[in-house]
């Protein structure tokens, strides 16, 4: 969806390094989310934001932090990457009644 851009699309990083994933939206939606998708687990919520500087934890937030300084940008940081954080990460926004997703970031931690 052209309204949500995730960067980078692919990244390989080493264990122990910090990593930041970016989500940029042009939808002007108040709510933004970070999910990870893993085989056998489906999509799991990491963190979400309900406004600028307003964020909260999801079900798998350990090892992750987020920041939202502008409506259009939502950053996800892996403070010290571990192999268990190898996954596909999706950003999503909503104005109610369903999400619009970005195309995802495939992150590999080696």
């Amino acid at each position, binding site marked *: 969806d052209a309204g949500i851009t995730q960067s980078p699309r692919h990244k390989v990083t080493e264990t122990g390094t910090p990593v930041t994933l970016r989500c940029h939206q042009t939808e002007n939606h108040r709510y933004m989310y970070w999910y990870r998708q893993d085989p056998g687990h489906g999509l799991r919520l990491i963190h979400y934001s309900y406004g600028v500087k307003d964020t909260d934890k*999801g079900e798998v937030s350990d090892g992750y932090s987020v920041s939202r300084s502008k409506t259009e940008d939502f950053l996800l940081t892996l403070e010290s990457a571990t192999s268990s954080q190898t996954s596909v990460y999706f950003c999503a926004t909503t104005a109610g009644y369903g999400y619009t997703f970005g195309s995802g970031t495939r992150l590999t931690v080696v």
Partner: protein
Amino acid sequence: TQLLEQSPQFLSIQEGENLTVYCNSSSVFSSLQWYRQEPGEGPVLLVTVVTGGEVKKLKRLTFQFGDARKDSSLHITAAQPGDTGLYLCAGETPGTYKYIFGTGTRLKVLA
């Protein structure tokens, strides 16, 4: 913890066949969505159902929300190879804008 169980997990059918995918929970949702995801892309919203008992049709796809708003089904009539993909249901926790996702049904339609 709210859970959404989808069945079947995998489905391989011939073009022209009908199929139904189920999404079940013990929790009540304020709305329920169905998405389709193709490899390398994010899920794309197909439909949102809000009212218990609601039925929505999208061409050959029929979506139903259970009367108690705990379950839903997706029925595809005369499946086509273009219907191939991962189908996900997601329920909205009442009073929030957070959605719980099912683990998905991977559909393959053979020509």
